[in-house]
């Protein structure tokens, strides 16, 4: 009996003392942040947060009269300070666990992003699975102030668009925070981030009018990849270079490219599967990288007079494609070597194959990288030609 009384007393005391304090927050006490934008203004950080207005998103409210997000901005000497300062504007504390996007202004990216990343990776509330992008030629705050329509929450629009384009159109890459940090820390690989751009005037973009037009005047669009050296942005890749980067990095899920026909016209092939392998070797103290790319393609569009029923035609197409892809990759590697930025992770590959050699060169790897011998092997297999045999163009002419 006594034992039980004691037990219940203890239970009650524990419940009374601990309840309600520890980390308890109701859903309507949260300002759910979907995107952060980091900029530098002078020596201060400008943080922009896109916060969801839940009542405007949910399906039950028929209105949709208001924009479903609100943007809060604050300046501070450090990021954490700036974010806490937001409570001056926001009725609720910023809750960042569901962050989807982190946009870094180009200016800040050029100055170095390591300071920004420390806060965001150290804070216990943040996950590491959101995408990081760079605002090309503009400030991150402008990107976060553009309204979107299909996905009403702009951060979601950015997230989905990046994911879809990375899956179906090779030149963009969805880099999450943990990946980015791993790349920054690694000596054998430099980081890249996809760029994002606002097209059109901000004045229209930040108002509801923008999404009430069938052709919104201001939109967000992804561009090619930004190249980092250390934690500083040093340049931008072209579209083909971005594509080649993804081929080398084994990040192509599916993409589309065109090949010239022998007698004029173009054939478009869709890459269904792509697999690449990096192999590093050190022969007589000279590092060497071999890139093997193997793709499975299908013909998606044929606008020239070719006969796709013949195996020779297919073989010819495969050869052209192999050559094109090889050229693209080789050129991209050469370009990167020119700038001494190893974005492909060749250094890591050398490290894996010959750690002893790597220890010797890792501190001046960019110089070694410049001289690195890179062999590219491409194997293209065209497996399908679609649902029609002959190009319509050929049939009309006959």
């Amino acid at each position, binding site marked *: *009996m006594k034992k039980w009384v004691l037990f219940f007393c203890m239970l009650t005391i524990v*419940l009374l003392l601990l*309840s309600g304090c520890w*980390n*308890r927050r109701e*859903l309507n006490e949260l300002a759910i942040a*979907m995107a952060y934008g980091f900029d530098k203004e002078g020596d201060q950080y400008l943080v922009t947060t896109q916060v*969801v207005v839940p009542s405007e998103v949910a399906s*039950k409210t028929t209105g949709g009269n208001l924009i479903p997000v609100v943007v809060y901005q604050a300046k501070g000497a450090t990021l954490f300070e700036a974010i806490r300062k937001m409570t001056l504007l926001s009725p609720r504390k910023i809750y960042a*666990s569901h962050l989807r996007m982190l946009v870094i202004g180009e200016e800040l990216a050029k100055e170095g992003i390591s300071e920004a990343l420390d806060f965001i990776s150290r804070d216990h509330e943040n996950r590491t699975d959101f995408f990081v992008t760079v605002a090309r030629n503009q400030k991150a705050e402008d990107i976060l102030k553009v309204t979107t329509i299909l996905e009403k929450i702009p951060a979601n629009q950015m997230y989905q668009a990046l994911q879809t384009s990375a899956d179906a159109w090779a030149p963009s890459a969805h880099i999450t925070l943990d990946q980015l940090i791993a790349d920054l820390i690694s000596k054998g690989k430099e980081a890249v981030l996809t760029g994002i751009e606002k097209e059109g005037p901000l004045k229209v973009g930040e108002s509801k009018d923008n999404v009430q037009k069938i052709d919104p005047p201001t939109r967000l669009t992804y561009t090619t990849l930004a190249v980092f050296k250390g934690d500083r942005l040093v340049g931008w890749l072209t579209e083909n270079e971005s594509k080649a980067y993804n081929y080398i990095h084994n990040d192509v899920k599916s993409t589309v490219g065109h090949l010239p026909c022998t007698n004029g016209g173009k054939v478009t092939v869709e890459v269904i599967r792509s697999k690449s392998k990096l192999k590093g070797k050190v022969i007589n103290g000279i590092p060497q990288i071999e890139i093997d790319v193997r793709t499975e393609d299908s013909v998606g569009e044929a606008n020239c007079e070719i006969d796709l029923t013949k195996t020779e035609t297919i073989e010819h197409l495969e050869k052209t494609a192999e050559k094109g892809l090889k050229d693209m990759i080789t050129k991209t590697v050469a370009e990167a070597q020119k700038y001494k930025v190893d974005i492909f992770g060749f250094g890591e590959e050398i490290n894996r194959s010959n750690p002893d050699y790597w220890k010797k060169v890792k501190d001046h790897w960019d110089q070694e990288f410049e001289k690195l011998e890179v062999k590219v092997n491409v194997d293209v297999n065209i497996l399908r030609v679609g649902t029609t045999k002959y190009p319509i163009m050929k049939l009309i002419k006959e």
Partner: protein
Amino acid sequence: MGLFTKIRKKLTGASSASAQNQNYLKPDPLHPTLQENIQKIKETLGNSTDLMIRKIQIGKNRKYRIGIFYIDGLVDNKTIQKDIMKSLLTEILGTEVEEKISRDPLPLLKESILSVGSLKDIGDYGTFFSSLLSGETVLLVDGCEQGLALSTVGGEQRAITEPVTQTVVRGPQNAFTENIHTNVSLVRRIIKDPNLWMETRTIGRVTQTKVSVMYLKGIADEKVVEEVRQRLDHIDIDGILESGYIEELIQDNTYSPFPTVYNSERPDVIASELLEGRIAILVDGTPFVLVVPAIFVQFFQSAEDYYQRADFGLIRILRYVALALALLGPSFYVAITTFHQEMLPTTLLISLAAQREGVPFPAFIEALIMETTFELLREAGVRMPRPVGQAVSIVGALVIGQAAVEAGLVSAAMVIVVSVTAIANFTFPSFNIGISIRLLRFGLMFIAASFGLFGITVGLIAIVLHLCSLKSFGVPYLSPMAPFILSDQKDAIIRLPRWALFTRSKTTHPRNLVRQQPPQKAKPKPPKGEGS
């Protein structure tokens, strides 16, 4: 326990006084003269008007006076008329027997005159009254210190109907009634084996309720039978109105939300439990028959699991899902939405947050409001008079379903959570396990609101530990899971095909394990020589 002992000590004086009132039970011998007896009987029963006394005279020259006593309404009037009155008054007139009766009436009455099925001698007031009050007719002969009790039990009683609490789609559709004799016969009709043994005792000083212990000799564990006997004999109470009284007085652990005695109103269920080596306790006056020992999984098994094909046995898994939902539904919701928002998918979080906009209470209070409203409705639904039922259910549906959400008192998501929980709670085949789950649900809600998922985990561990510590008549409550019995798994969470269930469950320690021929033989095979 100290508290109870104290109360008992205080009350001992009172209880011994009440025992004094029942001195008629003392074996005072009957008086030889009829008139004296009648006087005393009337006095003892306080001249109750339902006591019927007929005085008749039989034998040569109507020499012997006989008193016939019975309670109106408890007896079958036809039997009294045809088998007692007629035999005594008209059928022996002028026969040889009438001559003989003058010498020693009682043996003759027993052997040659009364054509009633069963009768017994009585010699004292104790047996006199217990026979009289259980519907027997008593004959007292003037000048004899002995009487005869004739079985004339009858009167109005409810017919056998369909079970109300444990329904099946396929399977026998009869249920026990309030009459213990009917109930025993229902079981006997299923198990026609001489090894079906039954012993009856009377429990309850005032109600004198018949309680029968039924078991299959040779299968049931003798030790458990003996334990049941002892626990029943230990009961000293004024009245037994329902088997629940017995259950509470013989169960292993009172301070547990979980029932350790199983009950059923289905004769087929009781028969199957007897075949498993369990012991049934039938109580007069209730259709609910107790079964011991009980184990946890038993409460999630329905009779229908065995009547449909084996794949239907997978439905049991659904019941365990329902168990999880009913136990954890609201607490999980409260924990995740107030402590672990990061665990929700983003879109779900936003939609939940949207529903919570404008709701004035914390999620826990919200859950408490909805749960309490639902419990009120359920209680009203059981308790209210049938004619007003519809009104209450309409109000309930509107209050719970719509008005509360539209008024912004609770969020729609909470209504869904509570409804799912409520429905899950109704899927248990046994009503009493539902009560325990209901109780624990509120407890878990409290710790979920204070400690989040961490609290739920600790709560669940505590529940499992408690379950592990429970025993029902020596059988671990969580068997066959803890202790793990491999051969019993075939009829625990799932049920295997009938041919695979060739041994009885080991949990109840049956003395004979073999249920049927081994599966190799029992499994049906296509006829030989047939082309496929």
